[in-house]
Structures are given as C-alpha cells and as structure tokens.
C-alpha cells in the first residue's frame, strides 16, 4: 500500500530523511516513534506530499508520489491525515468540517454528505456535537472531529501525526479508543506517536527512527522487550522511566 525505496529528503542543507526503505501492507498498522527531530513527522508528511521528496521512489496505492508531474489531488483524497493541532476549520460546524471535502472533492450531494458526516461523527462518539463550532469543543472532541473528517473521504489509508500530543491527559484515551477501533476494522494506518500502550495493543510493527534514519523495525512486543540497538534501548528507557 505504501512503499518507500531509498527515499532521501533535505530541508536546505539539512538531510532529514536518509535512505528510507519500508513497505506498509494493506490493513497494516505501523507505529513510528523516535526522539524529536528524528524525521518521523516528515516521513508521514511525505506520503501525501505535504513535503516533497528529493530522491528515491515513494509509491502509494500504486501511484508514484515521487513523480513531480502526477496529480496529487486524487491520491490525497484516498489518504486521511490527522494533525497534532487538529486544524479544524473554525468557521464551520463539526458537520460542515466533515462534509466539505466529500462535497467539493467527491462531488457528493449535500444531503448524502450530511448523512455520511453524521454517521462518522456518531462513530467517533460525537452525535450530540454535530452543530457545534470547533471553539465550543474540547481538544479531544476536536481531534475526534478531525478523525471523522478524514474518515468521511472513505480513505484507504489514515495517517496520524502525533494525534494525542496536544491533548490533556484525560482526553488522550477517547482519541486512542477511536483509533483502536479503526485499526481493528482493518484500516491501513501509519501513526507517529509515543503512546506505547497503543502501539503494543494494535500495531503490527513499530518503526524506530533516529537522526533521519530508520534504525529498527520490529513487532511491538519484540521492540519493547528486546530492542536490538543501543539507540532503541536508550530511547525506550528515556520514555518509559518518566
């Protein structure tokens, strides 16, 4: 579903992704972790070309994202993206946030899109917040609207960029629960997160990155109990002991 082959990326002189090779199969849940500045957010932002790559091949759902000439609109419609800072449209209600893309990109009729939006908002447990504006919702609720917004495009892949990092601790659970249910329903997911409980429970593999490189790829139980590299050991000890 997602395939990185020898991908390199620079921000100016800064080499942020170094020779990335990884394949994500359909239905797989991959958690990406690593210290800040390791390139993990950049990695998933490349998948829908929020960041362009400079070298290598990146193929998503059989479409070549590395090809500068390709029309990204079609690929992006198949990929849901959930941001750390939610990025809801503040002038639209929860329902309008979820229906704008289906109406404009998928050319869905408004009634049909509203039905879909209600269904997805219900799925994330917000059936009573449909007509609220983002400013009237808590952080956890806003992030769940953002997930529903992604789901309304009926995507093949969902990408999450530190979805719980901006949340108060008591709201993290409600967002993770939604993500877990998605994972068990077979959604292909790549999740940048430090929520190790989530990784243990639903991830098929954990990708550990440091300094722009993929250092380790392993099933979560192997990675957490027996990391193969010193960097991995050091990272786990630093996040598990605080």
């Amino acid at each position: 579903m997602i395939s990185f082959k020898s991908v390199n990326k620079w921000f100016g002189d800064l080499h942020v992704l170094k020779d990335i090779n990884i394949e994500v199969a359909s239905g797989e849940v991959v958690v990406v972790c690593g210290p800040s500045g390791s390139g993990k957010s950049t990695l998933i932002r490349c998948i829908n070309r929020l960041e362009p790559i400079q070298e290598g091949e990146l193929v998503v759902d059989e479409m070549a994202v590395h090809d500068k000439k390709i029309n990204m609109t079609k690929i992006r419609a198949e990929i849901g993206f959930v941001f750390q800072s939610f990025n809801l449209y503040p002038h639209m209600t929860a329902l309008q946030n979820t229906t704008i893309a289906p109406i404009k990109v998928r050319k869905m009729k408004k009634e049909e899109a509203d039905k879909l939006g209600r269904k997805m908002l219900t799925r994330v447990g917000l059936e009573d917040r449909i007509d609220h504006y983002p400013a009237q919702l808590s952080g956890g609720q806003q992030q769940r609207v953002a997930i529903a917004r992604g789901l309304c495009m009926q995507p093949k892949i969902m990408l999450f960029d530190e979805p719980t990092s901006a949340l108060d601790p008591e709201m993290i659970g409600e967002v993770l629960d939604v993500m877990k249910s998605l994972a068990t329903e077979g959604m292909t997911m790549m999740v940048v997160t430090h929520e190790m409980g989530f990784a243990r429970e639903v991830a098929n593999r954990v990708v550990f990155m440091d300094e722009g490189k993929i250092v380790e790829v392993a099933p979560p139980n192997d990675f957490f109990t027996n990391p193969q590299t010193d960097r991995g050991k050091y990272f786990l000890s630093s996040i598990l002991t605080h």
Partner: protein
Amino acid sequence: MLEALNFRVILEYMPLYLQCFAATLWLSALSLLGAILVGIIACAMRLSQSWFLKRMAGIYIESIRSTPLLAQLYFFYFGLPSLGIMMPEWVTGVIALTLNSGAYYAEIIRAGIQAISYGQIEAGISSGLSYFQRMRNIILPQPLGMTIRPMLGQAIVLVKDSSLLSLISIMELTRAGQMLTSDRFMPTEGFLTTAAFYLVIYYMLKVFSSWSEKRLVFQETH
C-alpha cells in the same frame, strides 16, 4: 450659529443635493465592489507561488500606496485621453477609486489571510481540495469575518475620497456644495449640507458593519 444659516437656500438646493447624494452612493458602491474584487485578486497574486504574479501585485500595491489619489485621478483623467483612451468622467472616477482602494484592500485581506494558521491550509490540501476550493471555502470566508472593521474603515475612506471626483466635474456631494457656494456665495451652507450627507453615509456603513460583524465573526481556539 444655526440661526445664521440660510435654510431657505439649503431647501432650494435640496433636489440637487439629493441627486448628488444618490450619485455619491452609487459611485462609491460601484468603486467599493470593484475595489474588494481587485483587492482579492491582487492579494491572491501577491500570495501566489509565481514570481511574476507576486512582482506585478507588489508593483501595483506599492505604486498606489506611495502616490496621492489626486495624482492618480489626474493621471487617468488627463493621461488616458492623451493615449487615445476616451471614457466618460464617471468611468474614469470609478476606475481611479477602484484601483486606489483595491491596493489597500489587498493589504487588509492579506493580513487576514496570514492570520489563518497554515495548519488549516494543510488540512485542506490533505483532503484533496484544490487551490481555488481552499481559497473559496476555507481561506476567504475567514478574513472576510475577521477584517470587517478595517474593511469598513477603508470603505469610509473611499466614500470620503469620492469627494475628489468633484475636481473632474462629476456631479456628487462635494460638487453640490461647490455649486451652491459659487452661485450664492454661501460656503457655510454649501459645505455643511455636504458634510451632513457624508455623515448619513457613514452611519449607514456603521450599522451595516456591526450587523455583518455579528453574523460573520466566530472565535478560534488554540
């Protein structure tokens, strides 16, 4: 002081004033619509990826903001006919006012757009919305709400600037005051009446602005 005013003359000239009041209204309204449109286009050009469009918008905005409106008005009034382009006076006036305010609107709208977090734009990109769909549905509705006050301020400036059109012999409120003054030598009556009508327009705009502000403004968290 009021008893010193000759209300009989003011009443006598009232039909002229009302006619000129209407003229100021529609000339300003037309220029305002044009200016907002020009402002949106110039702002889109300035924020675009293209070096050329950016530069063009920059030259337009800078040259308008660095020269007096009267000079711009005379440029269009005297300059264009000498290039063989003939237009009725009112068209020249509306073009000058439109292009002048358009530059200011471009900057007002730009400030509003740049206040929007880039994350929202990325969210739009991620869901497959095209540049124009993002502009139309996500970006433009927000500064239109946030910048009501500065937009209104510029609209008031535009209405007052329209008084300069009297200098290219367009019949509008200031011209009416000039006519009363030159016919009867009563500048106080002439221009106080003119000022009173401008005040009416100012209050109309103010009422409209607070009404639309209540409808359009929303709050953003985080």
